[in-house]
């Protein structure tokens, strides 16, 4: 897990963000390294984690998290981690037309592929996973993927609303990733805006406008929502970042070794 990010956001192993939706968004870069952070962070805090992975395999996450000091395989065997393999489920369902042979964890949550066209079942699976637990974390590794699989923007908005309800009622946290480059229907407002509406925190990651740099990998902005004021977000905390296998280095703009 990335200590520097936690320090800036005011999170720690004893002070986990609960009851909240955290939106990770990226533009011209890949922010999935933050998913690894949240996985490792919550597992180290002995919280229950539900990982629904549709963009990457479990092996990928296991490898990434092992560098952050967490063994996902062991956590899954201990019951701390529930992995919903939506990647295989979607393929199997698409090829075979049914999902009877699938294991319990993926079930029929991808019914939208065959006409149901809603994420209701996925929500219900999440709900069942976090029942009777506190401070659980639900990670959906790529919410934009569903838009490409035929889920309408409206249904995605419903899903986000119900995830917010689940977070508030079960005291859990929902983390998801939205690729801002993905614009399915430009005539309608982007579902990204709906995700933003429900998110208490947004971590926005962008590539550098000036192009690739060895010392600075991009710009990371942490936005936290204001509840009392009339502005939606408090002043942003904007930082340059440099990512290594095991750490995330956050720098004030203009203070990287390449500049100084």
């Amino acid at each position, binding site marked *: 897990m990335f200590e520097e990010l936690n320090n800036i956001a005011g999170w720690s192993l004893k002070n986990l963000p609960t009851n909240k939706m955290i939106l990770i968004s990226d533009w011209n870069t890949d922010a999935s390294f933050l998913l690894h952070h949240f996985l490792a962070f919550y597992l180290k805090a002995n919280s229950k984690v539900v990982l629904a992975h549709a963009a990457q395999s479990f092996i990928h996450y296991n490898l990434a998290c092992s560098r952050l000091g967490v063994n996902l395989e062991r956590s899954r065997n201990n019951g701390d981690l529930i992995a919903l393999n939506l990647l295989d489920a979607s393929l199997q369902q698409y090829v075979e037309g049914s999902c009877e042979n699938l294991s319990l964890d993926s079930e029929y949550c991808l019914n939208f592929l065959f006409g149901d066209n809603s994420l*209701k079942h996925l*929500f*219900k699976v999440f*709900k069942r996973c976090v029942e009777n637990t506190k401070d659980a974390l639900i990670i959906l590794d790529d919410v934009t993927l569903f838009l490409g699989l035929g889920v309408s923007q*409206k249904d995605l*908005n*419903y899903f986000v*609303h*119900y995830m917010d*309800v689940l977070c*508030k*009622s079960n005291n859990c946290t929902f983390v998801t990733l939205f690729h801002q480059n993905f614009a399915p229907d430009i*005539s*309608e*407002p982007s579902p990204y*805006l*709906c995700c*933003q*509406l429900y998110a208490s925190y947004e971590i926005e990651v962008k590539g550098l406008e000036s192009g690739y740099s060895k010392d600075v990998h991009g710009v990371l*902005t942490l936005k936290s*929502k*204001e*509840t*009392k*004021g*009339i*502005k*939606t*977000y408090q*002043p*942003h905390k*904007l930082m340059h970042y440099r990512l290594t296998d095991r750490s995330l280095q956050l720098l004030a*703009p203009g203070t990287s070794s390449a500049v100084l």
Partner: protein
Amino acid sequence: MLEKLLSGEETSRLVLICDDQFTNGSTLLRAFARSLIKRGCQLHLFCFEQHPTNFVNHLNLHNDSNVHVHDFYSDPIGWNDGDGCLLGSRLFDINSKVNQEQAGGSNTAVVIDSLSITLQTCESTSVCQQLHKLSHNQRVIQTVMLHHTHLHVDDVTKRLSHISDSVLKLNLTSSLPKITFSKKSVHDGTICVTVHRKLNGKVFLSEEKVEILSDSSVEACPWQQDPLSAQTGGISLNEEPDVTSEANLTFNLNLSVREKKERSKLVMPYIKASEEEKVEIHRSTGGGGKIFYEPDDVDDFDDEDPDEDLEF
């Protein structure tokens, strides 16, 4: 205008609060709800977007017996019940609910925390019809609703604005997504553009800077857009003196009124020069005109007549 609408001094049956991704209209909605309760109204609160308990807690009420909460947040389309979608029919029966629960008095008010889910579920025209009916319900003195303009196409906002008596549109004076390192972004304010239609048909437009005070009350003061930024088409920054930088200075940057007067009296050297020039020109026009030529040292005089080939 905003404060008059809040206090009830200005009558408005249907108030639409429009916000976007940079502004938070729910604070203003709560201010309206608080004001309606203070005025002794029976408040029907329709929560679609925030948990009702959360909304009521933020109202900071000592006695919430006048608040009737209708929870549409927990299960707006029936996913939690497992009995399928109950779109439209269940979602927007506000009118009948108000009629049913009405105890007999005529001081009922309705506050709707975001129309977004309703507008996604139902046709915007039918929502407008329902709201129109509600605004003409004699039992309801005021309906206040929140609308997120960025989540819907412009037509929906136009329809809702058309049926509303007052439209309060919240804007930031400076756009937040443009990330700047200047201190000005810290001084950003929120502007409320109010379009209010009176019962006699007169339309009022006002632009006010809105502040939420520490006791959650709303303070509004008139605001005018900076003409320079209006010309360039940008969103204006309300120019406030940068207190932090001036505080660190060892000298005074500002002038007092007396100093300004004295400055205006001072005749600058270039002004004097131009006055002398004027006098010279005046003299020359009055005297008929003469040319004086003083040859330079390097001038060579030619005795030949330069016009001899012209055969005068």
